């Protein structure tokens, strides 16, 4: 399926930025293995016969709506839940039955769970003292962690004397202090405002690379997952729907669910008309007078009903039809326009009433746009814009 998708996943290993993709390497040994794991709470199945491998130094994101089982999956690794069936191994060691206080994982909690009666310093030192680490070493490690999260001046404060962002940093420092094999982050940035969240995402990536640790993050925020993760697992109803690097999740979703959950998308029902090597011709129900060409190996047979996923930013809206005949083109009328400043979102109504969204960057400074309500327009896209989905 690799059609030259730019891999954003590169890691600085030994001072050189390298492509990081151990999941493609058959020799690589996973650090964490979920093997046919099922977790039931009474009648409810939170995780359903799920298998997943996560590699060392990977920044792995579990993405899904609330109730999809992502948090349960993480809590089983931390030891707060035991799987009903299946096996979880960490560095080859079977974890089932090991209590959380004996596992080499540390977790950063969504609520931060800082000990309110202890200072920042004592919070960070807590785990180290549990290990009976020698006093000088504890102090050195705590200082190092405070420096890492830039909180040296706040060591003596109690959690209630800190801002939300500072508490988040203390929680991060505390969970990193023991140098766990895996750091688990449960919606770590959920309580921060947008700007701070974006800054912190990049800091998390820096810290992860600096310490060379494996991070597993649970989030419902697809942008966050896309930003930080090497690979994303999209979950639904306790199952993995797709596990892939962010660019593949976005550009080559394997199902309507993934396409719809990650980013904005237009999904058109269509019938396969003809198949050629690396090319499919389809006829969409919404535009029966035009055929749509998609340059990919067809996952279906001629005559099958499939769906075409089209990202709004890959659609062009013009008043005139495109000159190039190889470009797909649908005609319609402007139903609504959303002006976002950087982008304008055109909602175009196709002849049968289906509406598609096209995002157009506002490249020039212009108050009056040439396209307006009820204009007859042409929506065009190249063959490599669409993705054929069978499920």
């Amino acid at each position, binding site marked *: 399926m690799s059609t030259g998708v730019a891999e954003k996943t590169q890691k600085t290993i030994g001072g050189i930025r390298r492509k990081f993709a151990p999941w493609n390497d058959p020799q690589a040994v996973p650090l964490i293995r979920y093997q046919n794991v099922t977790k039931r709470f009474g009648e409810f199945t939170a995780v359903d016969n799920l298998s997943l491998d996560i590699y060392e130094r990977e920044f792995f994101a579990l993405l899904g709506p609330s109730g999809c089982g992502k948090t349960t999956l993480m809590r089983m690794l931390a030891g707060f839940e035991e799987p009903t069936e299946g096996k979880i191994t960490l560095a080859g060691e079977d974890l089932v039955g090991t209590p959380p*206080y004996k596992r080499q994982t540390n977790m950063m909690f969504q609520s931060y*769970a800082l000990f*309110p009666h202890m200072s920042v310093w004592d919070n960070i030192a*807590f785990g180290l003292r549990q290990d009976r680490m020698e006093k000088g070493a504890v102090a050195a490690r705590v200082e190092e962690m405070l420096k890492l999260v830039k909180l040296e001046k706040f060591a003596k404060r109690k959690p*209630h004397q800190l801002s939300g962002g500072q508490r988040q940093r203390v929680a991060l420092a505390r969970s990193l202090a023991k140098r766990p094999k895996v750091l688990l982050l449960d919606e770590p940035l959920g309580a921060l405002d947008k700007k701070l969240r974006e800054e912190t995402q990049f800091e998390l990536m820096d810290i992860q690379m600096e310490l060379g640790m494996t991070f597993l993050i649970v989030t419902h925020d697809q942008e966050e997952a896309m930003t930080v993760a090497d690979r994303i697992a999209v979950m639904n109803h306790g199952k993995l729907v797709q596990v892939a690097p962010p660019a593949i999740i976005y550009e080559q979703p394997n199902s309507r669910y993934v396409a719809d959950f990650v980013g904005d998308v237009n999904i058109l029902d269509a019938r396969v008309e003809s198949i050629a090597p690396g090319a499919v011709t389809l006829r969409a129900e919404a535009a029966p007078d035009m055929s749509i060409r998609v340059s990919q190996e067809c996952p279906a047979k001629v005559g099958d009903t499939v769906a075409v996923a089209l990202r709004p930013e890959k659609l062009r809206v013009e008043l005139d039809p495109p000159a190039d005949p190889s470009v797909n083109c649908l005609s319609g009328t402007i139903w609504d326009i959303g002006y976002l400043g950087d982008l304008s979102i055109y909602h175009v109504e196709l002849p049968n009433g289906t509406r598609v969204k096209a995002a157009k960057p506002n490249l020039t400074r212009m108050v009056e746009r040439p396209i307006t309500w009820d204009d007859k327009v042409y929506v065009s896209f190249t063959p490599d814009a669409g993705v054929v989905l069978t499920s």
Partner: protein
Amino acid sequence: MAVKSRGRWLVLAIPYLWLVALFLVPFLIVFKISLSQDAIAQPPYEPIFDLSAGWEAFKDAFSQLSFENYSYVLSWDNEFIEAYGSSLWIAGISTLLLLIVGYPIAYGMARAPKSIRPTLLMLVILPFWTSFLIRVYAWIGILSPEGLLNQLLMALGIISPDAPLQILATNTAVYIGIVYSYLPFMILPLYSALEKMDDTLLEAAADLGCPPFAAFWKITWPLSLPGVFAGSLLCFIPAVGEFVIPDLLGGSDTLMIGKVLWTEFSVNRSWTVSSAVAVLLLMVLVIPIVFYQNLQAREVEGR
């Protein structure tokens, strides 16, 4: 605006008026009696302030007030100091026992499923629906030599029928009575402190390598301390001045200041000495109350 602020003053004034009329004024009366001398009269003390007798008489009466009763109460020759000490000791031991009994109960309640917590709270409060006096009397029936406890132990063959346990009329019975009667006052503040504790703190402790028992001492116990102090003071303060329980369940050797005060008042008919005993008891108890207030203020600040 004026009407509004007058309304506000009225609302503020009512509780103050209440406190002045029903707490401060009676206290001042008792304090004045404690500075007077016994007399064979009605009321049985002098001087009596009588404003109708004129200013000179008032000044004369005022000059008769003295701290004589206090030096009498505080002299080592009398049993008062011993009674104060013994009361503090019995109240202290009782508070400790209450804490030992009450903490696990409150902890269990706070950890119980949310759906059954109201029922458990109800069960703790339920005994209040029966008169305190009747409940203490009931313990006589349980603890007396031919009471229910001894009958049970004899029936089970644990003690011989000729040697019943002598619990009634001992300090043990007083401890049992105080622990039984005051338990809700210990459980409720402990429960409220434990219930609002965030469970993820214990998960975080476990995650950082802390086994459950250690996590209890490092996290749960320190965070429940406000409840421990509140419950302890709520039990300790009234227990020091307790009269009914030592009177009904205690023996002749149970020395508690409440009993001494009652004897002084109704047997010795000395209003003045018993007033001095009461005022001194208040002074002794003001110290822990102030301590508690400080603690609460600090906690509020900490939020």
